[in-house]
């Protein structure tokens, strides 16, 4: 049966380069009619780039694409729709103040007067067929993340897509929502649609797909039927060799309370509570992991500590390493914190939008932390230039010069610059948010080692992460956030993934 199935999509020798980087190197990929194909690969392995060539965002440098065995040229998203290909992007492209229906029909061309009611009826019909739980006239801002995603799916179905590409759809979902999404995907498959799901979560691959295609560093490694695969074999294909993470985790030495959060509560601009009575203590000489589903208050937590987010109530107490007393950081801005002599380093999630100045080179970015030094009104470039040169060398940053704008470096190099600078401050507290997001394995390990080295120097390291395996192997203790509350603090050495996963989705008032 499978042998007879024709291909919904066939990509032949597709190559895409960005400057000198080969993002996709002569890829041959097939999506068979009526199957769910997982496209598996690490961050930066070229999955999204490949799919963007199907959805008309990028155009291949070489190669040919066939849809339902017909050769096609997809030069724009409109071409993709004409081929019946619809992509659901990681970042939703919806207008908040519009209803689901309005968003779905937005941009469609048609003859004569537009009949919004008829459109609504058709949308309701699609929803019923696949079991979507959205109301066509609900506004987007009233929706949960998973409902917004559903709108995106309905949008492409409404446009007649029979090939759907989902780019890391589960990254923003809770486990329950993920299960529901997978049910929907199976329903679509039964209806004759062909689907590609991009992910790097192995259990999801095994759960939902019929076949798995693996990319590694822009190369097509191969494909395997899901029923013949298991976590181990897929990991081997994905990373090339079998990895147990094996992150070196020495025992904390002489841990002392360094940063103590007491009943921290913050509200965002819209008055929504983002952190709710959060209390925990980060100790010197340990890595404290912060786990949680995306958007559980991680960003607000770190930014509050760094003096970048208004605190409603509670205390953030810094205990000086030399036993020189304690300081409450609430109400201070980053400059106050610096002037009080609190050594605080912060590797924010938004590297180029917050941690670095994209248009400047490494030297200019080193100055961000040191330019105030000295009483002269002029800046000293010598010392930051030296620091830039040593980070360039020691962390093996790939850049033509220390003057080359960091915005034009690759993600891993950008992160090395940022982490290198923050560590060079010799901080007492090091906050990091998603420090290895988008980085390849090697760079990730560089970062793990740097963080562990800081821990051994007696720094209190706070590591907000998303990959549970890493959190469990890198950190000493874990704080689990759920909906802005601490749902538990566990020992990373003894806890299990299941326990943490449970805490991530369970509100437990009496936790902490």
């Amino acid at each position, binding site marked *: 049966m499978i042998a007879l199935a024709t291909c919904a999509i066939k990509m032949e020798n597709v190559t895409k380069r960005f400057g000198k980087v080969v993002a996709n190197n002569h890829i041959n990929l097939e999506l068979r009619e009526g199957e769910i194909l997982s496209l598996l690969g690490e961050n930066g392995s070229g999955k999204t780039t490949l799919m963007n060539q199907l959805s008309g965002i990028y155009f291949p440098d070489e190669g040919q694409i066939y849809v339902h065995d017909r050769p096609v040229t997809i030069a724009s998203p409109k071409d993709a729709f004409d081929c019946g290909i619809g992509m659901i992007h990681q970042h939703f492209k919806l207008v908040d103040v519009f209803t689901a229906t309005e968003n779905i029909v937005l941009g469609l061309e048609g003859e004569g007067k537009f009949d919004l009611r008829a459109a609504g009826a058709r949308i309701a019909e699609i929803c019923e067929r696949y079991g979507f739980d959205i109301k066509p006239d609900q506004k987007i801002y009233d929706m949960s993340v998973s409902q917004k995603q559903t709108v995106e799916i309905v949008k492409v179905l409404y446009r007649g897509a029979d090939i759907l590409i989902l780019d890391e759809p589960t990254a923003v979902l809770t486990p329950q929502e993920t299960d529901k999404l997978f049910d929907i995907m199976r329903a679509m498959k039964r209806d004759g649609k062909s689907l590609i799901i991009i992910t790097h979560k192995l259990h999801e691959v095994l759960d939902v797909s019929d076949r798995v295609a693996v990319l590694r560093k822009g190369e097509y490694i191969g494909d395997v039927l899901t029923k013949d695969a298991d976590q181990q074999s897929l990991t081997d294909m994905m990373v090339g060799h079998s990895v147990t993470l094996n992150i070196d985790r020495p025992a904390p030495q002489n841990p002392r309370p360094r940063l103590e959060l007491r009943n921290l509560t913050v509200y965002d601009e819209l008055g929504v509570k983002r952190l709710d009575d959060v209390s925990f203590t980060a100790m010197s000489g340990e890595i404290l992991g912060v786990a949680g589903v995306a958007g559980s208050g991680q960003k607000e937590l770190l930014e509050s500590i760094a003096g970048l987010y208004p605190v409603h109530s509670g205390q953030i107490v810094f205990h000086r390493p030399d036993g020189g007393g304690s300081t409450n950081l609430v109400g201070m801005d980053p400059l106050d914190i610096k002037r009080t002599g609190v050594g605080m380093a912060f590797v924010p999630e938004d590297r180029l939008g917050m941690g670095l100045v994209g248009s400047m080179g490494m030297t200019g970015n080193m100055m961000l932390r040191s330019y105030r030094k000295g009483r002269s009104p002029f*800046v000293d470039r010598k010392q930051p230039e030296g620091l830039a040169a040593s980070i360039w060398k020691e962390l093996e940053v790939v850049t033509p010069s220390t003057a080359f704008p960091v915005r034009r470096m690759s993600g891993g190099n950008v992160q090395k610059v940022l982490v290198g600078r923050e560590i060079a401050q010799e901080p007492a507290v090091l906050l990091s948010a998603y420090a290895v997001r988008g980085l390849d394995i090697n760079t990730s390990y560089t970062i793990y080692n740097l963080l562990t080295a800081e821990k051994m120097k007696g720094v209190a390291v706070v590591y907000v992460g998303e990959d549970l395996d890493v959190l469990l192997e890198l950190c000493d203790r874990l704080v689990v956030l759920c909906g802005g509350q601490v749902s538990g603090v566990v020992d990373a050495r003894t806890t299990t993934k299941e326990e943490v996963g449970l805490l991530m989705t369970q509100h437990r008032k009496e936790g902490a």
Partner: protein
Amino acid sequence: MAKLHSHEPAILMSKRGELLPTWKSWGIRVIGFLLSLIVSGVVIMLVSGLNPAAVFATMLDGAIGTTKRSWVTVRDAMTLLCIAVGLAPAFKMRFWNIGAEGQILVGGIATAACMIYLRSLPPLLLVLVMICASMAAGGVWGFFPGLFKARWNTNETLFTLMMNYIAIQLTSFFVALWENPFGSNSVGVINSQNKQGWLPNLLSDGYNKDFGWNVIIVLAVTLVMYLYMNHSKHGYEISVIGDSENTARYAGIRVNHAYVRTIVLSGAICGLAGFVAVSGASHTISTSTAGGRGFTAIIVAWLAQFNSVVMIVFSFLLVFLQKGAQAIASSYNLSQEVSEMITGIILFFLLGSEFFVNYTIRFNKGRGANK
């Protein structure tokens, strides 16, 4: 099968992987400039049937044909440069200060007021007072949009633009107040007898003696601002804020404070340009004292990418084009618009060359045909 490739893009563009060496990027810009001359030559021929070489020669003659003309070109270029240097910090911070016109005017009013009411002061002291007064006036004109932006996040583009209209009305008021002679509806040349408050001449060519010091003052300001923007802590903060406000906050820069400080500085230098225009050139004040230069200077600042020293080149270029344009308009009976077309063509090519500095282009030769 090949037909299916009909709307495949023929040209692929990508960002350059490394920085071009300085000589290469300037080479591209010079080529762009030469191309613009060729294209404007063709356009001139097509629309007027004139010999482009003769037209360019007339432009050259109009701008620097005589000593007097050269001096006027220098003088106007200096005024334009002063405004551009003033605008640069604001724009580099992504504060869209389109209120230079108003800032020049209030600077000019303050200068004229000093010339009229303080004419009995010793000459040197008077000039110093005028400089301070013009900068203070321009600074105040910058302060309010800056404060409102910092406090309530108002739109600085609209705010500074509206401040221009207030400044124009104020100028009209003072022109009426200081009208001389009565009924002329103008202020006339102030202190034409004793030249009190006129910038003294540095060089004398025996004919027109009132330039000299403009050049020194403006070049000094340019140099100081170059150091300020590129080597001072404030200048560094401005660059960071211009790139990302969030990064600035993260680095502990007090963004609101920096906004107000920078806009006051920007306004003050534009106010100083008002002083240069009034005390150094026209010796009078009218609603046309700014004369659109507050907007032209925006082009200068951007073309030079906020590098004050490079702005010297571009302010000369723009004033040169203006003067040349006036010359061809009068000697060939062409309308002023033709000259503006030429300016437009040249600017288009100069801006266009920035694209080639930052991007590489690859042509998609013969793809699809061999499939």
